[in-house]
């Protein structure tokens, strides 16, 4: 009787130790769901969702504070992905903004006065230039967040839509008629 109790107690202690060790050893810093949501978001850091960046929005979604349909750059596809990830139903776009075609910023270099305000606004360091020197956009790095447009005192930044060309062209979804029922 005593030996049985002892054995059970020992097993319990041993398992407890293992669990305790695992809790320390495999401790996950932060909320892993935030990372997963952040990976789905388009990383434009545009703030159109009402949060100051993609990570804060991801955190808000993970905490259940924000809806999944607030990210215009992600498009409907982004909402679908978030819905899949979180196991919730798809929702059409909410908020004040609607999805727009992809665009990159373009600085009219004749009008640029070199104030560096847009450089400070760019969340991904996609603008090169220095004080009183002309600035220009690195188009390949521009996420199209439009954050540089508002600070420009001379309105020399435009958003240029990315046109379809041979390299980014996609095969269209096949459209054909089904045979009408007799």
């Amino acid at each position: 009787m005593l030996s049985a109790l002892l054995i059970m107690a020992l097993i319990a202690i041993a398992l407890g130790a293992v669990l305790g060790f695992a809790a320390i050893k495999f401790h996950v810093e932060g909320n892993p769901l935030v990372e997963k949501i952040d990976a789905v978001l388009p990383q434009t850091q545009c703030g159109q969702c009402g949060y100051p960046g993609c990570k804060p929005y991801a955190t808000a979604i993970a905490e259940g504070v924000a809806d999944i349909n607030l990210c215009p750059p992600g498009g409907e596809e982004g909402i679908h992905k978030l819905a899949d990830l979180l196991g919730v139903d798809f929702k059409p776009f909410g908020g004040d903004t609607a999805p727009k075609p992809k665009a990159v910023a373009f600085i009219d270099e004749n009008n640029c006065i070199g104030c560096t305000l847009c450089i400070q606004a760019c969340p991904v360091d996609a603008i090169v230039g220095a004080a009183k020197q002309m600035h220009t956009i690195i188009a390949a790095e521009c996420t199209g967040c439009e954050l540089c447009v508002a600070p420009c005192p001379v309105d020399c930044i435009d958003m240029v839509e990315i046109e379809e060309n041979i390299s980014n062209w996609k095969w269209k979804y096949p459209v054909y008629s089904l045979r009408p029922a007799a």
Partner: protein
Amino acid sequence: MRSLFRFNGGIHPASNKAQSSHKPIAQAVLPSKLVIPLHQHVGNSARPVAEIGQRVLKGQIIGAPEGHVSSAVHAPTSGVIATIDMQLVAHPSGIPDLCITLIPDGDDEWIARKPCADWKALSHTDLRHRLRAAGVVGLGGAVFPSDMKLYAHKHKIKTLVLNGAECEPYITCDDLLMRERAAEILQGAEIMRALLYAEEVLIGIEDNKPEAIAAMSRAVLDGRHERMEVIAVPTIYPGGGAKQLIRVLTGIEVAAGVRSTNLGVQCFNVGTAYSTWRAIRHGEALISRIVTVTGHVGQPQNFETLLGTPVNELIAQAGQLPDTRGYIMGGPMMGIRLPSAQVGVIKATNCLIAMSDSLFPPVPPALPCIRCTRCVDVCPAELQPQELYWFAQAKNLLKAQEYHLFDCIECGACSYVCPSNIPLVEYYRFAKSEIWAQETSKKAADAARERYEYRELRIEREKQEKAEKLAAKEKAALDAKAQLARQPAIAPVKVEADPEDTMQLKIQAAIDQAKQQAAASIKPKNTDNLTSRQQAEIAEIEARRARIRELALSSTDEHTDGQGDK
């Protein structure tokens, strides 16, 4: 007799090759203009290096390779560059791309070529450079730069497969090339073999081309080529697919995500071997290719065609017929509809088929999939086309990838047998390009995240550095004040061991001196002729100020003393 292997499925569509294969290759007449796209190959577009109005010679480079995967583009004949602009090209999108328009002057004058009588004396690097400069790309349809495929470590590649299968209906350009220029193809194959350190060369030709098989076999004997074998393979579509031909000839099955080179096999089209020989031996750039012009035309035939020749001018030479509904570039199974008859012939143009309603009747409307799995039976990649269709039409891209969508070679065998006439391949192409686009935007998002996080880090770091600097400054100032307060004001400044402290004291002394000087020099400007009442007011204010100053000084002294004791 070599034992051959089989691949799964395959179909037997009407070959329709006899129409164009009974006549020898004809030289196409010089067209009125040449529209030469700068993107004729896999990889980066070539960069235009000719100017408008410039006279260029035949074989002169007009588009330089840009970046790692790219190829050169050359002037196919001598003439004057008319425009460099966006024009329609032979691409299913119908989107214009950068083209150079050349007006031939009729002289057909060659640029100085660099022939090489003994290519074995050249280094492998040199050979590859020459191929890149000559713009040699895979002519079987993939147009991948050949120099990049001709790189191998010793003893890694065992077998070089030359693809002369030409399994698609209507196309006969490789057939005629093998019949007429077998010796040169084999010479090119020797160069390829040397570059790859390959032991054997296997030339696979479908058995519906007996003349080509005979010509190639004779050339092997005449040229005394060692370990080179012409093998007749059964005629079955798509037996000319690289993976399928490798399977038939060697029994090696190239698995998903594996390159054939890792299994010791490299595959080239016979046309590429021929162009390789012309480029190395004669120093001729790839400026023309053999194009089968067939279908709804008067005299179907193969033409040696300059790249850039407008399709309608080439069709006219084979006899344009009325009621032509459009043109297919490539074969009827895998080819693409040309967006216009004005586009120029490119390196990938192996065949042009004029369409008519009798040859290509309109496809009847599609019916729902009944899951008969006939497509599974014929799929040469051993996929489940009906499942892929299901996922692609539902835009369930993840699932489609799980079912190995990217192993689909888009041969069209499934669409061919589909009793419901579903355009299956169109769905697969749609799903593939959708996945590619998502992958690209995912990569862009990851890059953006990295840049954003780095920027945040940098800003945080700068802030911290600033704060640290400020803190250090403040501390230094406080220390100096404490020192000053502890010492009697009249005591001479002792030279202390710590030079920094001395420095601080000196600076403080200088500041004090400057303050005293400033105080001495400041004189109120409007104090002349004051009334006694004003004088009294001023005196009162001055007394108040002095009191405040005293109070402030005593409180800071206490404060700094307290700090200094700690």
